[in-house]
């Protein structure tokens, strides 16, 4: 029972972690808390569904198409919306509200285009892998393997490549990075492209794990993802990875009967927020965030 919950927690947590890195990267560069991120995830999930369902493509092709489409969407939105707002030196508040408006537009446009009915990828929900006492569905297996690979790739990218160092340097201190000769416009496009790729991937994986999903499922995912970002310290990419995994594990393990009888599973989403509140009380700057007045 316990090991099953740990595995389930890793599955949920790795989806949160991927999305949380995407949110965190853009926040680090642009100081934008992107409320439309959940709906970008849903966009990626739906594009992949279009390829996998009606167009009969394999899941891999579908996922890649969903990721590419979401990255393009992110870049297009940067040109159409975020760049003009930056040019006007819009502050945190304007950006946050604009992302709320954008989230509404995106979500309703997806509902308009795809209809409100739930969709499911062509994976067999009854095919189950059994490892010892742990059971994993095919979708969960795909999700956790892909997510693990993606997490390693992202971590290596941030730690080892020049582009990754540029992004972290900008998140650390934008002015100093610009003075040091970093091409800010290029780094911004890079951040959006990666953030979009991760949104698409997280959306497809979330769709796989939940088995069926509706075009507005992004919003339900958004709050735990935000919780993961805050838990890790806004703007810290490694923190977001850790925060996502920790939240996923905490949500599942809270239902374990060995833990004070366990929490009623309907309250799993609430566990994430309670944990967040406790963490913020102890460390107001997040687990990995630096203390800073702003």
């Amino acid at each position, binding site marked *: 029972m316990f090991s099953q919950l740990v595995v389930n927690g890793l599955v949920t947590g790795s989806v949160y972690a991927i999305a949380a890195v995407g949110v965190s990267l853009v926040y680090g560069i642009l100081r934008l808390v992107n409320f439309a991120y959940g709906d970008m995830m849903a966009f990626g999930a739906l594009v992949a569904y279009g390829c996998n369902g009606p167009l009969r493509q394999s899941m891999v092709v579908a996922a890649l198409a969903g990721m590419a489409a979401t990255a393009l969407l992110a870049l297009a939105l940067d040109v159409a919306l975020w760049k003009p707002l930056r040019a006007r030196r819009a*502050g945190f508040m304007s950006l946050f509200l604009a992302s709320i408006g954008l989230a509404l*537009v995106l979500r309703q446009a997806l509902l308009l285009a795809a209809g409100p009915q739930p969709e499911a990828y062509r994976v067999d929900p009854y095919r189950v892998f059994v490892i010892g006492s742990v059971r994993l569905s095919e979708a969960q297996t795909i999700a956790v393997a892909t997510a693990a690979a993606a997490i390693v790739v992202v971590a290596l990218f941030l730690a080892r490549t020049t582009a990754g160092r540029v992004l972290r340097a900008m998140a650390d201190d934008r002015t100093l990075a610009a003075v040091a000769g970093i091409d800010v416009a290029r780094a911004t496009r890079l951040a959006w492209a990666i953030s979009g790729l991760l949104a698409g991937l997280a959306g497809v994986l979330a769709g796989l794990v939940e088995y069926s999903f509706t075009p507005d499922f992004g919003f339900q995912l958004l709050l735990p993802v935000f919780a993961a970002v805050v838990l890790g310290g806004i703007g810290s990419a490694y923190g977001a990875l850790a925060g996502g995994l920790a939240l996923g594990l905490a949500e599942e393990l809270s239902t374990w009967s060995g833990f004070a009888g366990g929490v009623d599973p309907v309250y799993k989403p609430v566990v994430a927020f309670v944990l967040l509140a406790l963490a913020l009380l102890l460390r*107001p700057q997040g687990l990995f965030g630096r203390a800073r007045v702003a």
Partner: protein
Amino acid sequence: MSTLASAGFWEFVGVVAGIYTILALGIQLQFGFAGLLNFGQVAFMAIGAYTMAILVVKEGWSTWLAAPLGVAAAAVGGLVLGLPTLRLRSDYFAIVTIAFSEIVRYVAMNEDALTGGSQGTIALGPVGQAAQYNGQWAQFQHRMQAWLGLPSADATMLVIVWLAALALLASAWAVLRTPWGRVLRSIREDEDAAASLGKNAFAYKLQALALGAALAGVAGLFYAWQFSYFSPDDFAPLLTFFAWMIVLLGGLGRVFAVPVGAVVFGFIFAGTRFLGFAPFSWFASDQRAYLRLIIIGLVILALVVLRPQGLLGKREEMVLE
């Protein structure tokens, strides 16, 4: 077109605009004057409405005792949220408030024994019996209607809600002109400067949060009475965003911009139901519901980009940053 022309429909739009005015006034107080990014306003509305309904149905209280207690519960909710979170950075605070409102909705959805769960207030009473919390209110409304000689219940509600809204607007306006209001604005402008003059910024912010929450509680009461039934779905985060849009539309930092924003919002929201011309006529009616929200989203975007001080806002006093 028949609905568009009927007085009944516009009375209804007016009632909803009045309720939104009270809800959004709370956000104006919190953000426009104290600089607090509260994105969980709808939770306080839910707390007010549920407290009143539960006390009336389960405890058999009089509506006139239960209603002020609902408002008080909403204010206490504001204190409970603010005590641990107001020291956080503003971006963290914004996210935590949204999370708070979802927790409140989640509890309302799953604690069937307390709130009736997802079936809503109809399940508040014993099994198999449809619960009612607004008997005394309906009587009162009926007497008012006879006394004022008004043609319908909605028309009476329109008068009651807007009288309440105007009274609250006037009180807020008066309160914000006192030294208390000036300190609040100075904290919004520069918290450190206010603190250096010996003002307890945390206490002032907490008071503003609780006061705005109490206003949301009042809005919750009127919402409950107007619709005679509600469920946790009525308190989704979307409602908070509507209230924010009203404040932005009217203008930041001005009390009497709120009703203007609410009325304009009411017209946009209700009016877009009747988009019977092309290109809207190409869509089925359920699809037009999505189009309405797309339009609302686009209006928010346009306001943020083009007119960050709102319709009536003073640019020199406060601009969205």
